[in-house]
Structures are given as C-alpha cells and as structure tokens.
C-alpha cells in the first residue's frame, strides 16, 4: 500500500527537477533569482518569488528524498537526511549539531514546533543591533500569514513523554503551554525527525517547494554551491560542483542572489567566496546554537517517548528569569526517545549505561535549550573553513554556559520527580540514577561540568550573517541585504544577531516572507487569498 507522495504524482512529471548526479559536463544556466539552499528560508523564498512571476533556480546540496522513501529506520534517516550523516560536531567535539541536508533542508526532519520570535528577543535586537522596523507589531502579520500558510495550530494531544512536563510544572506551579505545530492531518506517529511518511508535516518539501515547482521553478539537487561570483561589486551568481566525480561545474547567473544555505552553509559559502567583501570580519561570527542538555526520568508506567508528536508541551518559566541579559535562561521541551537517538543522549558506561537503556520504554526525556548570545560571556561561535573548504564551528564552552546547564538539569529533575518519576538521571557521564529529588539536587550540583563529559546538542544553528544597522557589527541590514553587495540577500537562520529563545523555524518564515516581499517591491502580497488572515495589514510595511 502506498500513501500519496507529491513528487510521485502526475503533476510532478511536469516539474523541472534536475539531479546534479546526472550532470557530467560543465553547464551554464540563468534565472531572475538564484536561491542557494532549499530549507526554511530557501523553500519559502522560492515560493514567493515564483508567485511574483520570477524565474527561479533553487539549488540544494542534499538529495531529493520524499515521503515514499521515508522508512522510519533511524540510521537510514540520519545517514541520508542530515548534514554529515548526523555526525556534525563543533570543532572541539563538545556539541553535536543536527541540521538537514536534503530537499526541504532541516524542515524535512524537524519536529514541527512553531513559535513566533519572543518580544524580548526582538526588543534586544532593536536596542543592540538597530533593527528598528522589526517590532513585535510589525512582525505579527508576517507570522499570521505563515501560520495560515503552514497550518500552524496548537496541538493539544500530548503524548506521555510531553505530559510529564505538564504534570511536573503543575505540581510545582511553574507555567507551561501547549506547542503549536505545522501539521495538517497529523497521524501522531512521532517520526518527524526521520522524515514524515504521511506528508502531514507542512515542511518546505511538501508546501512551498511543490508550489514553486508548479510555477516553473527549476530545482537542482545534489549540487553544492562552492563560491559566489562577483563583478563590479555585484553578485553575478554561483559556481557549483556536482558530487558524481565527473568534476563538472555548474555556473548559474542571476541578478538577484539569495543565500539560504543555513547558518553554517551561508556564512561558509561567503567565506569561501574570497571576492565578497568582509571589511569588518563579521562574516561567520556570532554563531549561536541553543546548546541543549538532556535529562531522563524513569516513570512508573510506560512512556513510549518514541511514539506521538515529539514536542507538544513546553515551559518558558526559566527562559527570561534573570532578565534578557542575566544568567543563561532555558526553555524546557520534550525530546523524542527513539532508541538510537536516545542511546547517544543517555550517558554512562557498562552496567550503569545498560540499566539506563533498559528502561527506555518508561523513560521520559526532557531537553533544556539554553538561550545563548544575550550576555558578554556568551559570545557564540565562529565559522571556520578547513583546508578542504568544509566548514566547522568553533564554539567556546564558557562557565556561564555550564552554569546554565547545571541549573537546567536541576529544573528538569525537579519537574520529573514532581510528575512522579521513580528515578532520574542526566546526560552526564558521571550521572548515577538518582532515587529522590534531594539526592538529585545534591548529585547534580556536584557533577564536574567540563566539555565532553556532558552531552550537549543543537538542532538550532543561528547567526553568522547577523542583521543590523551598523556594517561594522553586522553582515546584512534588517532587510537581509548584504551591507557591501546590494543584490545579495540572506534569507535563513543565519540572519539572527543572537539566538532566539524559541525554536527557529517560524522566526525564519516570518522574516524571510517580509524580506522577499521587500525585494520584490510594490504593495502586493504574494500569497493565495486563503492564506491571508482577516487582520493582515501589510501595505505600509512592504512599500
């Protein structure tokens, strides 16, 4: 039996899709708009530009994998859909980085949680980076449109894994909320991170990219943008490599170049393009990760944290507690518990590890996402190029961050015990299985917080092409336009001057929708009527 796959439909036979592996000789192509990277930013940009009648070429490093090939086997998904087969780490190995490398980018594998940019974050940027027009009020309509476009709605059916957060928070009188998700007809399977087999997830793979293809966009996948080309201070396009060993180079020219290769891909492409000015050395600086630490509660009954929507309850109780630039705040969410994935988050060795893993089915997983970039002791990382041109992130682990990690462990443990956990352990090599909150409180405080002892992960890479009004401290302006190259724009997560304090996809959608409308100009909104909520008044903003 087969479920419908848009890329296997009758309609799809008319789409212009080229596999870079089929290109064996140099080729030259031209378009009105060249978009590099097909994730949250690139997929959406292709949709809007094509609606405005522009001829778009969208290129993607990863392959075209679609719902009918998503077999829900962890290892296949990690190997085929993630950057570096999900083995990407920061330069010192201390933080594992999860990013998609496939058509649809990270949206093809993300967990569907959708949050607007917190007002505290927008205000901080406004005050410190001069992004004057990005107020909560100005951004509201863009978020409303994108919420309609991607069916973003509150998800009330929390699985047992998420429900632990609700129960624990209620018992401790901490605030908690339901998460909004970009899904339509979701089967509540819980495999969003392995590629949604039902196409319920409204990722770029099944929304904006098919819409753009329907309007004549050319998609070239398995094509790696090596460097941007430049003439007389204008970007002229890209030189891209195929990976089939033929050595063929594809040159694409366009009067508008959009960088959407993600927060490691975009800055590293700029750094590889030595002709692109970088007068204040800001490119690839201030990379943020929402470093996340993991805690595990052994519950008295089955949790089956691998089944059901991965994230549906969150708590921001400790996110802004010390003020925007005080001690590191953290957001609390659930982490899905598929065995291979969980096996890498759970720490320990020998029998201790084995016993922790044996409890998988009744183990609750909480991730605490640390809000980095708002404090001078949280300067973020730097994108560096290795000798072979591949990027790596040099991210310093500061005592400030480790202090956040320790407090986050303590909060998670307290929530779990309050929700009825029999025992708790945290993602640290030395963590025993704590039998009571008192024991955990003491034990967690006494752990040694040094890099590589605790598992730190990131699924949210941000920054590296920060927007701001001052070219000395940012790479692009608040309209995504490169400070030195006026026809070069950044449309992805690398825009953010700090982390967000919320999962990034909706922030990217809102900002990119606004930026692309600005580039096109005029006062028209390029969305179908059905996507425009009644309240939307955009004319003044996009003029």
């Amino acid at each position, binding site marked *: 039996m087969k479920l419908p796959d848009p890329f296997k439909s009758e309609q799809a036979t008319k789409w212009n899709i080229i596999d870079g592996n089929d290109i064996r000789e140099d080729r030259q192509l031209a378009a009105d708009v060249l978009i590099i990277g097909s994730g949250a930013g690139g997929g959406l940009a292709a949709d809007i530009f094509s609606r405005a009648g522009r001829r778009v070429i969208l290129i993607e490093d990863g392959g075209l994998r679609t719902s009918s090939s998503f077999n829900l086997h962890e290892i296949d998904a990690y190997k085929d859909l993630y950057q570096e087969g999900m083995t*990407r780490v920061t330069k010192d190995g201390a933080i594992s980085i999860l990013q998609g490398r496939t058509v649809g980018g990270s949206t093809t594998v993300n967990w569907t949680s959708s949050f607007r940019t917190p007002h505290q974050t927008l205000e901080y940027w406004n005050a410190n980076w001069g992004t004057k027009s990005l107020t909560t009020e100005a951004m509201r309509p863009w978020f409303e449109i994108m919420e309609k476009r991607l069916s973003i709605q509150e998800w009330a059916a929390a699985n047992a894994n998420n429900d632990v957060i609700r129960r624990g928070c209620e018992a401790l009188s901490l605030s908690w909320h339901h998460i909004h998700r970009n899904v339509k007809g979701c089967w509540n399977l819980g495999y969003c991170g392995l590629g949604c087999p039902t196409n319920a997830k409204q990722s770029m793979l099944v929304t904006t990219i098919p819409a753009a293809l329907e309007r004549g966009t050319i998609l070239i996948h398995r094509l790696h943008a090596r460097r941007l080309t430049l003439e007389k201070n204008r970007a002229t396009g890209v030189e891209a490599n195929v990976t089939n060993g033929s050595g063929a180079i594809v040159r694409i020219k366009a009067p508008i170049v959009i960088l959407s290769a993600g927060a490691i891909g975009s800055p590293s492409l700029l750094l590889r393009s030595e002709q692109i000015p970088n007068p204040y050395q800001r490119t690839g600086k201030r990379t943020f990760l929402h470093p996340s630490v993991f805690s595990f509660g052994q519950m008295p009954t089955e949790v089956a944290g691998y089944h059901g929507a991965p994230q549906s309850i969150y708590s921001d109780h400790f996110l802004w507690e010390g003020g925007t630039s005080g001690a590191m705040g953290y957001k609390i969410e659930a982490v899905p518990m598929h065995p291979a994935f969980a096996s890498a988050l759970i720490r320990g060795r020998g029998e201790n590890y084995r016993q922790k893993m044996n409890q998988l*089915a009744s183990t609750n997983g909480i991730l605490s996402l640390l809000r980095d970039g708002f404090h001078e002791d949280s300067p973020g990382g730097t994108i560096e190029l290795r000798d072979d041109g591949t990027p790596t992130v040099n991210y310093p682990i500061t005592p400030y961050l480790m202090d956040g990690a320790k407090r986050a462990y303590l909060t998670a443990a307290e929530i779990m015990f309050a929700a009825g956990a029999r025992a708790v352990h945290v993602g640290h090599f030395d963590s025993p299985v704590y039998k009571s909150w008192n024991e955990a409180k003491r034990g967690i405080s006494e752990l040694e917080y040094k890099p590589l002892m605790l598992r730190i992960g990131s699924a949210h890479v941000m920054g590296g092409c920060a927007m701001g009004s001052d070219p000395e401290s940012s790479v692009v302006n608040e309209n995504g336009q490169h400070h030195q190259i006026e026809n070069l724009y950044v449309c992805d997560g690398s825009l953010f001057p700090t982390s967000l304090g919320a999962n990034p996809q909706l922030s990217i959608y809102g900002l990119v929708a606004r930026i692309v409308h600005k580039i096109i100009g005029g006062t028209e909104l390029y969305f179908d009527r059905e996507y425009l909520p009644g309240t939307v008044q955009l004319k003044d903003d996009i003029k």
Partner: protein
Amino acid sequence: MRINRRRLLQNGLDQTLRLGLIGRGLAVTTAPLLAVNRWLIPSAVAADATLNLKYIKPPNFKIIYAILSASLGLRSDELTPKAKSETILTLDNHLDKMAPSLRQDLRMFLDLLDFPISRIFFGLNSTWEEATPDELDKFIEGLDHSTINIKRYAYQGLLTLLQVAWFSGESAAQSVGYPGPPDSIKPYIESDREIKP
C-alpha cells in the same frame, strides 16, 4: 629520507592539531606516534573482503567489539556474528557521510588503538585479546574522564557512532523495549531492509 620523515612528522602534527591537541603538550607525544604508526601500519591493510568495507579494517574489529561491549554493557551472547557484522557495516556506511577530516581523526584513533605504544598511551596495557572486562572498564573510564581533551574527543566521537550503529539494529532496539513504528503506519512503509555496503 630525513626530509621525508620530517614531512611525515609534519603531517602527523597537522592531524594532531586538528584533533585539538595544540597547547596541551601532547602534540609532541602523539605526532611521532602517528607518524611511526603510518610507517608500520600502512593504510593499505585490505578492508574485509566479505563485508566490502570502505574504511574499517579487520584489525579494527576486535577493538570495536571490545569498546562496544564495555561501553554499552553488552552481554557476550548479544554480540552475535550477525549483530557484529551489521554493526560494522552500519558504522562503515556511516563513516562515508562524515566530514573527511573527522573521518580521518576516527580512522586514526582506531589505528592508534591497535598499535601497542599508542594503545598504552590511551590507557590499555594488555592487548585487546587479553584485556579483562575490568581492564576494559578502567580503560574507558580513563578515556571519558581524561584531563586530556584529545582522549575525551576521540573516545566520544567513536562511542556516539557505536551507540547509534548498535541501537539501530533491530534486536538491540527490541532488547530495550522498542516496538518499532506504530501499527497504523506499518502497512505503508518498506519493512524488508537490508544493510548494504
């Protein structure tokens, strides 16, 4: 010859820098080891013919099995020939996707663990064949607690790969109670799946 040797040492040093050794006084210790290692164990050791491996070499197998069972607390009956070859294959497939420099680091770590001097440097005095479970446990504890970042970095990288490779195996996943995807979706997904090289 002198120059070549110096070049080789230089190469070894570059690698160790990439491994993050700089400034920790160890670059000097391991660089010659890496270089010597390349003289003695050339990368030309053939990959296992039956599994068609690209990166993992037969001398690495015993090390992988030993670390796997000691780190994950496996019982000896769990390491069946099938589970072993599936894990090795999965690992080898996965190495193909890694950034080349990380892959090189890992490959080198495995080679170093096979070479007596460097094996002792990393904390195991007995040979892999002779090491007792207790010695292996101490060896691993030494790695994950080392004050030397390079040791934690190398072990951590290998361990994560081994964990993911092991627990993506069907019997390992079942052994910790994972029932696979919900029944509602099973008729629609490919169930027969062979791990191919």
